[in-house]
């Protein structure tokens, strides 16, 4: 090897620095129509370096080249699996032969990355493979461990790009174990690959070395997360996402808002798995870390400068996104608790409630244990703040109204926050989604409310927030959302109607209801039917024709809507026999539609089993009822 301080060597170092600069800095300014100009230039420099290294070798290393050929192994394709022979025999990393191999390997590595960057994958693979071959002859040491890691990261990316996940997984898992093995056995700050080509006065500090090495390993974690995702191991992938985030935090290598959004998104993974403790932890961390991004610039400041304006927009939007993740947390917690507590007619099962309350004590202990064993986020500075945010909301299922209400209020608070950014004007879809969540929060809370009058009022709140929007939305652009709103409104009116009737029945029997109650009941009943009907009408063609064949996505909703309209028709209260008659006939038509449809489309039957069974009964029963009415009317005349 050329002496470290000769002019020749200096020239090599300069070339390397130049190549790095071209790759990392210049290339960003390459013109649109020649996007790889700097990378192509860098490639030339790297090739020259390679030649120089080779010629140094030929000039001095007689005895080494002999050793080299003696050490030549059969060159099987180096597919990494579990083998870790880097720790076995081979040149020691700091021997002249080991150093030369590492230097040549590093140039091959940079050439490989360069080719991959310029979309010449096969050439890139060849260089990276050459690098692996050179390293095969060396033991892992602090001089070359970084290169060991980097080249495997790159090969992992390359093979994943070709959809060869097992290959990629092999390289990356080897990288992971090399890191762990190295940290256990040695752990001293390893040489960074760039240092192979620097003059002595420019060597890195220990701190900088550690930082770069840890970052490379963070990337290994990150690539593994993606590989596991791609091969369908979601739980493992989530764990690796979690470790990537935790490493970023510990090593202080993150941008707060992005980190926070990632953590908030991860919380949604845990929520869908029913892991509320983990979900809450992610969200609390997201809230705390997003705070590190600083204050939102004021409107005045935003008007003054464009960068402030963009920052304001970014911060507000991302905080609103985190708020929306919190809303989902509260909503799912309430809904899951409801599922746990409801009996077969959807009311609160008090026996179950008592049983679960007794179980709670055990759960609390479990929570403590779980918290200790779970992977947690936080650095020394943030840990306490995260715990404080966590304390604001339950992570165990709420079991009574008071607890449910406290979860609801947290959720509602985030609804307000999210709506501040996602206003109707400009963000129609997002705004409505938030309102739908708000409505769903009320619905879940209403389940826990024992006072029917107050429960009814909660449903009224839902109607008030959704009804005007449903009527204003352009149905050409927002057809799908409108359909959701129609259905929800129909159901809400139905719920209110049932509550009113239950309340009235407590005071009197159906026959002797007072006029005011009847009016109220009929109003709710018709309103519900109206929205179901609106939903059905939305399925019509522009010419007004109802489809003969219902598509899968709307099959069940359409048949259920028709069935419900039928039921609502028959429940309308009237003292006039002819009105009663009319309502029952309409109702019969609706039930018949459901029965007939399922007869002509047998596949539809399983989608609406209960409704179909009841419709069949009604189709048998209603004609009798209608005939009785007819007879009564005839007698009256």
């Amino acid at each position, binding site marked *: 090897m050329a002496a470290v301080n000769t002019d020749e060597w200096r020239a090599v170092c300069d070339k390397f620095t130049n190549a790095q600069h071209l790759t990392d800095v210049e290339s960003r300014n390459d013109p*649109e129509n020649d*996007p*790889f100009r700097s990378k192509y230039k860098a490639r030339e420099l790297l090739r020259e370096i390679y030649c120089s290294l080779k010629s140094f070798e030929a000039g001095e290393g007689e005895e080494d080249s002999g050793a080299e050929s003696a050490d030549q192994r059969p060159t099987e394709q180096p597919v990494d699996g579990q083998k870790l022979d880097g720790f076995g025999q081979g040149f020691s990393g700091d021997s002249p032969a080991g150093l030369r191999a590492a230097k040549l390997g590093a140039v091959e590595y940079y050439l490989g990355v360069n080719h991959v960057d310029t979309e010449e994958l096969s050439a890139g693979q060849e260089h990276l493979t050459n690098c692996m071959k050179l390293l095969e002859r060396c033991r892992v040491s602090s001089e070359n461990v970084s290169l060991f890691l980097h080249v495997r990261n790159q090969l992992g*990316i390359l093979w*994943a790009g070709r959809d060869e996940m097992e290959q*990629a997984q092999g390289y990356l898992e080897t990288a992971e174990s090399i890191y762990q093995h190295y940290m256990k056995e040695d752990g001293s700050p390893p040489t960074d690959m760039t240092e192979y080509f620097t003059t002595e006065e420019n060597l890195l500090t220990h701190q900088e070395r550690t930082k770069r090495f840890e970052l490379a390993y*963070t*990337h290994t974690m990150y*690539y593994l*997360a*993606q590989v596991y*995702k791609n091969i369908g191991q979601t739980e493992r992938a*989530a764990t690796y*996402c979690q470790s990537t985030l935790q490493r*970023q935090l510990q090593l202080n290598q*993150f941008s707060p808002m*992005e980190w926070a*959004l*990632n953590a908030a*998104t*991860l919380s*949604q993974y845990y*929520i*869908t798995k029913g892991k509320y403790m983990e979900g809450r932890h992610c969200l609390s961390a997201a809230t705390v870390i997003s705070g590190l991004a600083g204050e939102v610039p004021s409107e005045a400041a935003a008007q003054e400068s464009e960068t402030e304006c963009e920052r304001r927009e970014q911060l507000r939007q991302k905080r609103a*996104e985190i708020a929306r*993740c919190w809303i*989902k947390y509260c909503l*799912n917690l309430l*809904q899951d608790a409801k599922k746990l507590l*409801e009996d077969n*007619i*959807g009311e609160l099962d008090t026996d179950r409630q008592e049983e679960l309350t007794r179980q709670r004590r055990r759960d609390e202990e479990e929570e403590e244990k779980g918290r200790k064993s779970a992977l947690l986020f936080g650095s020394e500075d943030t840990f306490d703040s995260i715990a404080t945010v966590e304390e604001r909301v339950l992570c165990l299922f709420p079991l009574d109204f008071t607890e449910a209400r406290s979860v609801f209020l947290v959720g509602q608070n985030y609804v307000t926050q999210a709506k501040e950014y996602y206003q109707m004007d*400009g963000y*129609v879809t997002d705004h409505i989604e938030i309102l739908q969540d708000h409505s*769903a929060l009320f619905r879940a809370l209403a389940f826990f409310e024992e006072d029917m009058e107050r429960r009814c009022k909660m449903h009224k709140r839902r109607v008030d927030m959704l009804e005007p929007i449903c009527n*204003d939305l*352009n149905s*050409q*652009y*927002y*057809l*799908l959302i409108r*359909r*959701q709103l129609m259905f*929800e409104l129909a159901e809400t009116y*139905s*719920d209110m109607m049932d509550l009113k009737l239950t309340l009235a029945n407590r005071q009197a029997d159906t026959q002797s209801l007072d006029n005011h109650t009847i009016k109220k009941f009929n109003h709710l009943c018709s309103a519900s039917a109206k929205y179901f009907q609106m939903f059905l009408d*939305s*399925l019509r*063609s*522009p010419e007004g024709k109802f*489809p003969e*064949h219902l*598509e899968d*996505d*709307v099959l069940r909703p359409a048949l*259920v809507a028709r069935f419900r309209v039928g039921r609502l028709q028959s429940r309308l209260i009237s003292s006039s026999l002819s009105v009663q008659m009319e309502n029952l006939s309409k109702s019969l038509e609706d039930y018949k539609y459901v029965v007939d449809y399922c007869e002509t489309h047998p596949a539809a039957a399983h989608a609406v089993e*209960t*409704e179909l069974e*009841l419709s069949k009964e009604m189709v048998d029963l209603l004609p009798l009822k209608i005939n009785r009415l007819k007879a009564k009317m005839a007698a009256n005349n």
Partner: protein
Amino acid sequence: LSLSRSGDSESIKVFVRVRPLTQGTGLTTDGDQSLCLTVTSSNTIRLLSKPEPRTFTYDHVADMDTSQDSVFSIVAKNIVESCMNGYNGTIFAYGQTGSGKTFTMLGPSELDNFTDELRGVIPRSFEYLFFLINRESSKSKSFLCKCSFIEIYNEQIYDLLDTASASLFLRENIKKGMFVEGAVEKFVNSAAEAYQVLSMGWRNRRVASTSMNRESSRSHAVFTMTLESKESVNDVVNIRTSQLNLVDLAGSERQKDTHTEGSRLKEASSINRSLMCLGQVIMALVDVSNGKNRHICYRDSKLTFLLRDSLGGNAKTYIIANVHPGSKCFGESLSTLQFAQRAKLIKNKAIINEDTQGNVR
């Protein structure tokens, strides 16, 4: 697709077109005489993959000899007609750079002559639209037509009709739906005028050359025609609006940031230390199937957001997938064919919150 309003199950259709082999165009695929795919019927194509050849089925497959006119008749005619009736319509062109997207959509690149036999789907759509407008216009019915042309590059929106403007924002309005705020809209009265607007904007697109491709586009271009019809029947004025979107997607080999890339890993080196893409990974883990209600912090790309109505909503959509038959293009052709097949599965779910429990008593 199932949610089109008329209930006909066809909101997204896929048309695959195979281009002839290239000769002397300077493309690296020149002189590549071995084929990797054959058209086996008017809706199937066979890819000569190893060990087993694979057959793909689409709504229509056109071989090398297919004329521009027949592409138009199959793909666009119906969509233009629906636009006249108040439906929104979208035509996408998708495929590897050099696979014939621009030829299919526009025609030969130096085209100014409007009567050229080789003119593409877009000029033909203009002609047909104005033919229909002229036929239908009467005292009681009138039409108003305006165009906008935007480009999505690096997730930023630019106005191709006003290159001086800064990047624009997407906004939504309760009445107007999704729109690009501040995009220039030009009124047009004839096919020629529309074509003029198009070619003016086209020249402003961002293209790049690499050692692999002579010329490749890194941006998506969306040309939107808004058609408003006014009809007075017995003193009642009926106004209907519809949109025709003509979309030229970036070369498929460049779409590293969209769902089309399949399994390619996101690299950290290029995104520096921020690892924003980690979110995309987590996003993919969040399970939708178990019916839990969740929020994802990361929006889809601007393009899918803008064209949400076209992707499985309330519109008629055709995707033209262009493929190059040369065996050198095997990989790209495979991914294009796979994308096209996935596109057929796109469904916009209207999850209706119906929950009859407790109500059927």
